[in-house]
């Protein structure tokens, strides 16, 4: 298969990693042969994975040192358990001493792993604090969201704590997944089988239009690679500084304005309509067309 054609959405976490970083540069931390598996899945007689569903390591990307974690969405929905979460937290702790050019989080997760829900919830809160510590140390953290499980639950919050969020249109970002809302509130509230609707509520084009995703890229691993490389360059010149009071008061005003402006909105179309002349065409637009519409180079 031509390397340029590899879908990020379809690829496994390990495939994404190997195509994203410079060839052969990945050094894995806590690799599968260490068999740091989940005792809690074992207790519940559920299948184990030798890496507990997340790959953590160091690599170079366009020659720059990065620390990187990739969640495997196909193993338990990329959900965070005790070991899985601790690997990501450990990677972020390591960034403080190794000082890479960036930390890349390839997020593909429904959130907390129910089999070990309490450990997962605490782990995500530890990851949240660690993401902020790393950024406060002047190291950017980039979230890449384009997998089949998207970034939901606590990992949806983690994603929005990152310095930049790169998404594909196929990527999804939110808090409660459509299935959860449908189960609790009924199919009239959110029909989780209506894929077009789900993407208009949670998908990359909606998140990019709202400014939550900072870059929208094609569903190709090299497109994510190019975006990550570009961001690394940008932040080498201007390392992140922790948000100060004025910046957060500004964010407060912006988020308030959004909630007022779209006080009754229930579909991404309403958000596109407010900003774009050709709103009805947005779902069919290519990424390049959409980015052009946003007034930025594709």
């Amino acid at each position, binding site marked *: 298969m031509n390397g340029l054609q590899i879908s990020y959405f379809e690829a*496994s976490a390990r495939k994404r990693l190997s195509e994203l970083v410079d060839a052969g540069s990945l050094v894995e931390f806590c690799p599968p042969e260490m*068999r740091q598996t989940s005792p809690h899945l074992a207790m519940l007689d*559920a*299948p184990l994975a030798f890496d507990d569903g997340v790959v953590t390591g160091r690599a170079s990307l366009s020659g720059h040192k990065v620390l990187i974690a990739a969640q495997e969405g196909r*193993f338990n929905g990329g959900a965070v358990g005790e070991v899985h979460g601790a690997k990501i937290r450990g990677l972020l702790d390591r960034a403080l001493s190794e000082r890479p050019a960036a930390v890349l989080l390839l997020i593909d997760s429904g959130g907390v792993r129910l089999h070990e829900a309490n450990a997962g919830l605490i782990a995500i809160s530890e990851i949240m604090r660690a993401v902020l510590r790393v950024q406060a140390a002047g190291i950017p953290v980039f979230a890449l969201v384009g997998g089949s499980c998207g970034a939901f639950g606590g990992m949806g919050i983690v994603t929005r704590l990152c310095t930049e969020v790169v998404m594909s249109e196929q990527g999804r970002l939110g808090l409660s997944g459509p299935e959860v809302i449908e189960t609790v509130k009924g199919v009239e509230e959110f029909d989780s089988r209506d894929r077009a609707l789900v993407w208009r509520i949670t998908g990359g084009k909606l998140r990019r239009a709202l400014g939550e995703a900072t870059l929208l890229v094609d569903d190709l691993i090299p497109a994510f690679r190019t975006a990550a490389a570009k961001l690394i360059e940008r932040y080498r010149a201007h390392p992140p500084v922790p948000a100060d009071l004025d910046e957060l008061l500004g964010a407060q005003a912006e988020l308030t304005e959004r909630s007022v402006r779209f006080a009754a909105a229930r579909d991404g179309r309403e958000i596109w309509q407010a900003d774009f002349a050709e709103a009805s065409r947005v779902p069919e637009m290519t990424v390049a067309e959409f980015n052009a519409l946003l007034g930025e180079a594709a």
Partner: protein
Amino acid sequence: MEQFSLTLPSDALPQNIASATLCGVVSSGNLEILVEPAAASDACRIVVNTSAHGFRDIWEAVLKDFARRHSVGGLSLSINDAGATPAVVSLRLDQAFETCRGELA
């Protein structure tokens, strides 16, 4: 989960493999295979951990076929399975074999 292990005679892989390699993903109807070097060069040691109970005979047939088709002596295979069919198991075994050879030192 059902766990069993077996040691199958097989011709020695001509070279040592440099490191562990992982192939496949543990998801419904799929499996992962971790390939590592083992001490004995004339046999392949395999540990299977599967969510499908009662299929040991079929596993053994698929694994014996694999050890016959390839020179896998000196390899240790650890398998986490979430109910893959014999065809998928066989395919992943071949992929794991190719992958570990592709990373020869």
